[in-house]
């Protein structure tokens, strides 16, 4: 090597300050703060509810069961928001996936007479095929979303707004507007309202498991870095050689897969589809994700924060019902919490650099 002009510097300390200690990072994280809020809510309702019913094991089981679906949707939405994308169609996806699954189950479950009587001769296979159908439908729905975003070069807000309409429309067409009901009771008994060790609802267990996997993917795998990196600057991601279209495809595919799973959980809990429902799913999930510390504009994502924040609506509904206050207040409170969270997010973005 030939040195033409020598470096004028002699490098001394490269790093002028050290990193904050782990404990401080945890305490200042949004996930931690939102966990404190959740604990405070639980304490308040515990103190205010008659005989402390709110703190009883039965109520916790209900809370876990009621939040499972929103937790799952919020986990998927964390990846999308982190990547600077959005999926407003997840409610429609949940409905469509549940309808397809229910149709598959009734078709495979036995003769029409048996099915009408709620007596499935072939329940086991039918349920497994139903689960598969829900997951495939959900994933395909997500892939269609991503393909449209990639092809039309329109942002995902518009594309998924349109797909929300398309999805529910198709669900209505398939069912003729009538819910598919009288699904096999085995579905509920062995899955939808089944408990592990008699205490942990299976859907909640699935939500926590998938959340844990998602946390690992987000924080430890290259996939997570590419996801938030793309949300932080899509131009930088492209210049870094990341195939953002493919990444988008994977992200919407994962969101769709989760929506499909949620659709299956839905029919397994209630033994019927709910084609009029799930209208607020997308917004509830987005709210939870933003409250949990993920930036609405991409670049930062917290799976753990989303999961904790996704419990809030269930706590509010549950607590207010126990206190005999109208559960409608839950919507108001969730909205206020969302506003506070967005305000914090804005201030953080505007923080001096």
């Amino acid at each position, binding site marked *: 090597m*030939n040195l033409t*002009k020598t470096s004028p510097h002699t490098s001394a300390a*490269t790093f002028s300050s*050290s990193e904050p200690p782990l404990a401080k990072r945890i305490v200042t994280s949004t996930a931690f703060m939102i966990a404190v809020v959740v604990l405070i809510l639980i304490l308040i309702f515990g103190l205010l509810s008659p005989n402390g019913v709110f703190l009883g094991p039965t109520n916790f089981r209900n809370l876990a069961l009621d939040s499972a679906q929103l937790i799952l949707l919020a986990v998927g939405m964390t990846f999308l928001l982190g990547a600077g994308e959005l999926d407003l169609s997840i409610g429609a996806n949940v409905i469509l996936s549940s309808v397809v699954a229910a149709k598959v189950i009734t078709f495979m479950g036995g003769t029409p007479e048996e099915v009408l009587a709620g007596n499935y001769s072939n329940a086991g296979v039918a349920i497994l095929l139903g689960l598969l159908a829900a997951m495939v439908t959900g994933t395909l729905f997500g892939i269609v979303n991503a393909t449209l975003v990639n092809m039309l070069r329109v942002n995902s807000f518009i594309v998924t707004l349109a797909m929300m309409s398309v999805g529910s429309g198709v669900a209505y067409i398939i069912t003729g507007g009538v819910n598919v009901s009288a699904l096999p009771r085995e579905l509920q008994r062995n899955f939808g309202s089944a408990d592990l060790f008699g205490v942990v609802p299976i859907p909640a267990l699935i939500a926590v498991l998938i959340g844990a996997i998602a946390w690992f993917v987000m924080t430890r*795998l290259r996939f997570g870095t590419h996801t938030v990196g793309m949300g932080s*600057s899509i131009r930088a991601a492209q*210049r870094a*050689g*990341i195939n953002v279209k493919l990444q988008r495809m994977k992200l919407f595919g994962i969101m769709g897969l989760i929506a499909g799973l949620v659709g299956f959980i839905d029919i397994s809990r209630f033994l019927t589809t709910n084609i009029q429902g799930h209208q607020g799913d997308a917004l509830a999930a987005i709210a939870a994700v933003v409250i949990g510390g993920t930036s609405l504009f991409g670049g930062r994502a917290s799976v753990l924060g989303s999961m904790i924040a996704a419990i809030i609506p269930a706590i509010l509904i549950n607590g207010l019902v126990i206190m005999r206050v109208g559960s409608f207040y839950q919507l108001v409170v969730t909205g206020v919490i969302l506003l506070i969270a967005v305000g914090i997010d804005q201030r953080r973005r505007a923080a001096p650099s």
Partner: protein
Amino acid sequence: MEKLLEADITEADDPGLESTAQPVIETRGITKSFGHVEALRGASLRAYPGEVLALIGDNGAGKSTLANVIAGVHASDGGELLLRGNSVDVASVRQARELGIEIVYQDLAQAPDLTVSQNFFFGRELLVRGFGRILGKLDEQSMRQRTKEAMTLLGAQVPSLTVPVSALSGGQRQAIAVARAVMWAKAAIIMDEPTAALGTKQTAMVYDAVRAAADRGLAVILVSHDIPKMIEFADRMAIMRHGAVVSQMPTDGLELVDVLTTMLTAQKDEA
């Protein structure tokens, strides 16, 4: 001016350069058009290991286009790019990188929310060995270690490797971009106006980093408008006009007025 034009490259007596030097990067007659606009009409230059080559010229002379062609951002329409004497095909940034040519973009192309070390390895993350590799598990420790080494090497100072780059100053971010390029580059670094948006102190910090990069044996091609600074700082200068390199010479003893005259009046000269 005639003298200046004749003072062309290939001189083995170029003070401070290896006498046996082979150019790391050489372009021969590169052409590139955008629609009807001929941005490059046969641009030829040479960049040697261990030197800072300033690429200067008036607006629209084709400096950035030539830099981008070398870095694989634009594919050339014609002409030849040679890496250490071998003709290479560089159709994408990825290909250029594989050949050891890195570019530092004017806007840095950083992900502001990612940390310093995440940005260093963005798109080229190091993975752990074994089973985790299949999953794409990040080897964060190695990445941090190598980022630290690369930053120390250039004497670039940042508060911490785990802060998002958005929390750093413009000069720090620029220094990170240079350090990142140095870490990956095996042959050359192309920089487009690296100090355009910086204050005096930060500019000095970036020039230090650029010099340190050249000292590592890399060829640094620096696109710049700051001619007086380039005369002082760069080892050699390539002057472009109307899409061609009209003159290349060492900066020693060069006068600003000569450079300006060449830049504004020279006719195309096949270097």
